[in-house]
């Protein structure tokens, strides 16, 4: 059943892409959306069946790809990623109807979204090197096309697409190199053959393969310092596409690391995983800091993706290191926590990106400094965005809390480990979790408070109206998922645990005890978010009632009129309220060494006197320090080399002939 459902899903997504390309403008949006929603449902059923039953399926066909054929196989690890993609895809498909209503997207834009979705569903099922690389490159290609939707109107989109194309290409080249190397030495290109032969592989070889593929997958996952495409591409892509990119595509980078490192290479050395954890630590802190400093909603969300991928990588790295150190049970728990967080991230980040898209749709801007007061105008969007923001800030009762608690718990358990390096890594992980928790909360207090509360700061924000029902359903679906997984995380944990067992080959044990809450099997530690939330609610009701019922003094009950001296509060304008930039300012000051904000203050004076300024303009940019320090010099060097090389072909036919002639003579002389 799982096989049929999964392939129906793939087929429906492809059909959606086809219909999106050929149907007339009025029909194509709806047709593509309905078909891709059906595709997601089918894929969800297929993947869910694999996850619940634990039985993988595999299919081989020699027809599609020449020489190698196509190998598809869905094991619980892959099924988890398919399921996460399908859930986000379902919401996105629904949302895309409303998103495209006002300005009907072009044929290509309508077709690329389902095509992108299809490739996202395909990658986790690829079971040979050739199939995997084809699926991976298809995913890169379709996502690039989807990202380019607005390329006619916006120069930044073209810029972002170039960055994305370059990074994904470099990454794919590294992955290809690594996997081909692996296939050549393992005596077969199917994943099953490689996994069967991994004992014969030498350690230096597997290390090279791991480092190469880690580079490629980390660039897709958006780990620092390979994250530079993310804060450019996510804001510039249409919101459904950024939700898919951030909620589903980024996950596949983590999937690749797990698939190659744990499944194909069997865990390998401890230092591999310490490198992964280190990447995670750097990404988490860097991403959280930039998210706290960003004033563009989608840029903020993109950096927050870097942050969350960092947390997941900390978990994956710690799990790998613990497994390499022989602590299988704990490794299982930590990996479970990491994968749970990954699923949760897909839910809340998908919800937040869709919400940011709704804001942009309604207010015409992504700039938090120009939003404000939207909670009254768009109450439903505010609630859904708020649910996502609270989840990502890991507040109890929402799914972010559940997975971060689990991750904390797992990392803290590992302190009893014998290996000092592992303990140091776990310590770094815990510290990172703590600091990013605070920074993330700051970032989302800013996004919620400045974006939705107070008064509108621009005409666009003032004229904003609630978005259509399909967009709300899309957001609400994901927000509901956040709440459900937050209150009863126990329902999905056994399912994810199955993926963990598949991911961690060396005999992972059951890390959790069944139940609705979070209960660990290895140590006595449990928490029931449902009870927690229930208790909090009861406490709130009691407090509210107590305040209402308490006897009040006569002075308080007497009417109060506004004073003549209003302390400025009589005339509250939007210009008096705190902006996103000012909210982030103290933090920016503290972390000035990392963020390196560029200030630009320009004062023009009146003609009569230098003592009276006529206008003061203030610009601030927070550029990516990694981009400035690492990428700019490399790009400058490449550009210089390119300039140099341009002098060689000057258009003279004789010069070109001379190259050929010289090469011929040279080859002959060498041969002689």
């Amino acid at each position, binding site marked *: 059943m799982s096989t049929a459902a999964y392939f129906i899903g793939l087929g429906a997504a492809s059909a959606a892409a086809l219909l999106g390309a050929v149907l007339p403008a009025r029909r194509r949006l709806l047709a593509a959306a309905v078909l891709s929603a059906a595709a997601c449902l089918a894929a969800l059923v297929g993947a869910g069946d694999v996850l619940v039953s634990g039985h993988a399926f595999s299919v081989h066909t020699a027809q599609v790809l020449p020489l190698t054929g196509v190998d598809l196989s869905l094991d619980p690890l892959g099924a988890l990623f398919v399921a996460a993609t399908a859930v986000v895809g379902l919401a996105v498909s629904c949302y895309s109807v409303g998103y495209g209503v006002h300005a009907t997207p072009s044929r290509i834009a309508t077709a690329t979204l389902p095509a992108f979705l299809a490739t996202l569903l395909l990658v986790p099922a690829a079971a040979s090197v050739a199939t995997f690389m084809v699926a991976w490159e298809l995913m890169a290609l379709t996502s690039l096309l989807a990202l380019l939707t607005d390329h006619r109107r916006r120069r930044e989109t073209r810029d972002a697409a170039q960055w994305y194309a370059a990074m994904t290409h470099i990454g794919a080249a590294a992955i290809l190199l690594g996997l081909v190397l692996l296939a050549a030495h393992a005596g077969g290109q199917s994943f099953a053959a490689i996994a069967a032969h991994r004992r014969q592989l030498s350690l230096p070889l597997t290390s090279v393969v791991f480092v190469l593929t880690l580079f490629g997958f980390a660039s897709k996952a958006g780990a620092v310092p390979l994250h530079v495409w993310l804060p450019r591409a996510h804001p510039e892509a249409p919101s459904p596409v950024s939700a898919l990119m951030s909620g589903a595509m980024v996950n596949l980078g983590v999937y690749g690391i797990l698939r190659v490192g744990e499944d194909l290479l069997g865990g390998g050395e401890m230092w591999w995983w310490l490198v992964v954890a280190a990447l995670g630590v750097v990404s988490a802190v860097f991403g959280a800091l930039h998210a706290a400093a960003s004033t563009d909603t989608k840029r903020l969300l993109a950096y927050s993706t870097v942050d969350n991928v960092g947390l997941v990588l900390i978990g994956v790295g710690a799990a790998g290191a613990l497994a390499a150190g022989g602590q299988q049970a704990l490794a299982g728990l930590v990996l479970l926590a990491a994968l749970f967080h990954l699923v949760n991230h897909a839910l809340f980040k998908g919800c937040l990106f869709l919400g940011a898209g709704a804001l942009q749709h309604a207010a015409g801007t992504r700039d938090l400094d120009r939003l404000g007061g939207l909670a009254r105008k768009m109450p439903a969007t505010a609630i859904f965005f708020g649910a996502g923001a609270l989840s990502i800030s890991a507040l109890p009762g929402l799914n972010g809390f559940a997975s971060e608690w689990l991750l904390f718990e797992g990392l803290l358990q590992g302190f009893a480990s014998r290996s000092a390096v592992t303990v140091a890594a776990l310590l770094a992980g815990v510290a990172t979790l703590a600091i990013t928790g605070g920074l993330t909360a700051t970032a989302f207090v800013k996004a919620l408070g400045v974006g939705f509360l107070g008064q509108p700061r621009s005409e666009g924000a003032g004229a904003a109206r609630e978005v259509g029902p399909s967009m709300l359903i899309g957001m609400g679906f994901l927000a509901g998922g956040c709440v459900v997984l937050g209150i009863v995380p126990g329902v999905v944990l056994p399912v994810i645990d199955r993926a963990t067992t598949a991911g961690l080959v060396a005999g992972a044990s059951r890390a959790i005890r069944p139940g609705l809450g979070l209960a660990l099997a290895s140590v006595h530690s449990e928490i029931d978010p449902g009870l927690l939330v229930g208790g909090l609610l009861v406490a709130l009701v009691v407090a509210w009632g107590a305040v209402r019922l308490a006897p009040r003094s006569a002075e308080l009950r007497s009417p109060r009129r506004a004073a003549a001296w209003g302390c400025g509060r009589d005339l509250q304008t939007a210009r008096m309220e705190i902006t996103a930039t000012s909210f982030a300012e103290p933090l920016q000051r503290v972390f000035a060494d990392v963020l390196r904000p560029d200030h630009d203050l320009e004062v023009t004076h009146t003609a009569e006197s230098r003592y009276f300024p006529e206008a003061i303009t203030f610009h601030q940019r927070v550029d990516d320090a990694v981009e400035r320090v690492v990428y700019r010099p490399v790009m400058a060097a490449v550009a210089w080399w390119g300039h140099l090389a341009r002098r060689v072909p*000057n*258009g*003279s*036919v*004789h010069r070109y*002939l*001379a190259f*050929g*002639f010289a090469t*011929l*003579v040279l080859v*002959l*002389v060498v*041969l*002689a």
Partner: protein
Amino acid sequence: MRFGAAIDVAELAAGIVLAGAVLALWRKDLRALTSVLSLQGAALATVAAVLAVRDGDVGLGVVAGVVLVAKGLVIPYLLARVVRADPGSRETSPLVNVPASLFTAAVLVVVSYLVAGRLTALFPDPLTRLAPLGLATVLVGFFVLVTRRKAISQIVGLLLVDNGVALVAFLLTAGVPLLVELGASLDVLLVVVVLQVLATTMQARFGHVDLDQLRELHD
């Protein structure tokens, strides 16, 4: 030995092929080049004929005839027509002057003897020993392509390369099949026709046939 004289003739003819290539470097008069090509075509046909007689191969005899007609008569005639369209045309300023070109040709001949030494060692035979001459013709023809400016010189260079290839093929292989040689000859004929049209059009459009001036089409 009855066949000795024929081999001498073949050696002479192969020498003429290379000498023709060097002559093409030397002479600036484009009309003279067509006669050089004609001579070279005839010499090539002679080599093929000698081989045909030695091996008693009728097919190779026909090939010799085809070579004589195509490379000795038709192609030089077509070229001569192009040259007549622009009377008094000379390769006035080659990129490398004539003495330096001749010196380079000498170096190329040495190189080809060095390179072909390993090929001829495979099957030592009086005719196989001549293979370096063909290789040298290829290299000199290529050198003509690189250093000469006029479109007609380019055609000549291409034909020299082709003749050199044909000579090597005759000497090193056990007889070139008729079909292959026919195909190759027709190809070359077609190239010459195309280039003839191109050169004539260039002459009419730009008033010259100097390839270096085409550089402005770059970018």
